[in-house]
């Protein structure tokens, strides 16, 4: 099984921001949730993959193609859905399709028409007349109609209603029926990723804080809640992003099973959500 995405020591410096030699990869057949707060480096990483900005150092390969040396071949393999609409507002759905389709060797008009029908997209309506959800559906229809092996989605669900978000997750599950495909799903709405991500990469301040399978992540990490007195029993050093109040404490731990096995009194170890993991890890970073 190969990787659809492989990033090695990727570096990009702006005024006041540095993407610090990040590395991660995504195997075929899976969805990677790319999470982190606003300004963490998610969009910068995606722009670097798409060669919209120039890297200072490092390597990027998509489906085995270097993103600079084999840029066109690489982009043939990618379907992209960005956080906002970048298509011409003055043109109709059909006109945009006429412009975009010829660039893809593997454009499948039948598949496109199926998505148009499924999403109830009006072919003769101008883009500016579509709702935000409809614009997103249109981007998705274009992204899924040229047999792309790698789907990049940058905050696709922000501002969308729960019904469409749920539909989108079903579509992604359908897309991944072909095992040689992969999805990089960047979002700070982690509840969607709880449902669909197989791998999770957390980025903050241009650094990867964690990158592993969601199963491994949820198996290792736990949300610990307990009496403050327990902190004096050596528990403190095992906690991440500790938050204390007059009733007790809450924190994340990487040794969930270990702590649970010690059977402390007045201590709860719960399964965290991705949002818990993101919040506590980022809080932990701030207090380092």
């Amino acid at each position: 099984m190969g990787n659809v995405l492989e990033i090695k020591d990727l570096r990009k410096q702006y005024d006041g921001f540095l993407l610090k030699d990040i590395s991660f990869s995504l195997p075929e057949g899976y969805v990677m949730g790319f999470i982190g707060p606003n300004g963490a480096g998610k969009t910068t990483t995606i722009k670097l993959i798409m060669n919209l900005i120039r890297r200072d150092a490092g390597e990027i390969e998509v489906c085995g193609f270097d993103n600079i040396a084999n840029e066109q071949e690489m982009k043939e393999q990618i379907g992209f859905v960005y956080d906002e609409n970048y298509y011409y507002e003055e043109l109709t759905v059909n006109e945009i399709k006429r412009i975009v389709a010829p660039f893809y060797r593997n454009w499948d008009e039948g598949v496109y028409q199926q998505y148009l029908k499924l999403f109830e997209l009006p072919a003769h309506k101008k883009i500016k007349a579509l709702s935000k959800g409809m614009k997103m559906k249109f981007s998705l229809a274009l992204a899924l109609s040229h047999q792309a092996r790698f789907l990049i989605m940058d905050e696709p669900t922000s501002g969308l209603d729960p019904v469409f978000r749920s539909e989108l997750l079903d579509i992604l599950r359908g897309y991944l029926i072909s095992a040689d495909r992969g999805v990089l799903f960047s979002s700070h709405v982690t509840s969607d990723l709880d449902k669909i991500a197989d791998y999770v990469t957390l980025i903050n301040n241009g650094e990867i804080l964690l990158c592993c399978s969601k199963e491994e992540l949820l198996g290792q990490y736990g949300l610990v809640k307990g009496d403050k007195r327990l902190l004096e029993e050596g528990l403190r050093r095992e906690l991440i992003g500790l938050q204390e109040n007059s009733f007790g404490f809450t924190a994340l731990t990487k040794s969930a099973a270990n702590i649970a096995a010690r059977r402390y009194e007045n201590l709860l170890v719960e399964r965290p959500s991705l949002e818990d993991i993101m919040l506590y890890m980022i809080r932990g970073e701030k207090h380092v």
Partner: protein
Amino acid sequence: MSSLILKDILLQKKSFFFALGYSLFVLIAFQNQVLAESSYIMGAMATAYMLVIGACAYEEKNNSEVVLNSLPLKRRDIVLARYLSSFVFVFGAFIIIGLMGALMKGLGLPIPLRYVRPSDAVAVVISLAILTSFYFPVYFRFGYIKSRFFNLILFLLVFFVPSLAVSYIKEGSSYEALDRVMALIAEFSAWQTGVGAVILAVLAMAVSARISLSVYRRREF
């Protein structure tokens, strides 16, 4: 690349009525002795240039270069398509003003004074080629918004300097150097001057396209 040119045409389809209106305006307004001879050239060039600028403005307004540069195409194609679509616009603008002039003459109106000539077409293409040769490198480097000031100066230079020069020549100049240049040009036949201008325009476009490509390759979106 044809898709990129089609995109520029589709974006500007509403400007057809503007082109019609502007052509009519030029044919009526440019009827004094100085400007009448160049009314087809000036009208077609101004219309085409405004269509070129309009296409660039749509790109920036929609921030669509993010999408264009995410598609499997080379940055070179994006740059060259922009140059090629300017020829499509000049062709369209020339046809419109030519037909408009013919219609007015056919209806027996006193203006314009003559039908369009092939030499007008050559002059329009050369003028627009030189004009866009200056504009595009600045546009590809800075984008539409940031290049507006440069564009304004260029536009004023192109549309006021020639008419000033024509009146200056017709009224008789007192500048020796310019007189010598004019005398030198007068020694060449019309076709020699035309060939010289074509060579100049081709060279300008080649240099301009190279600069545009070089700056656009470094652009970040």
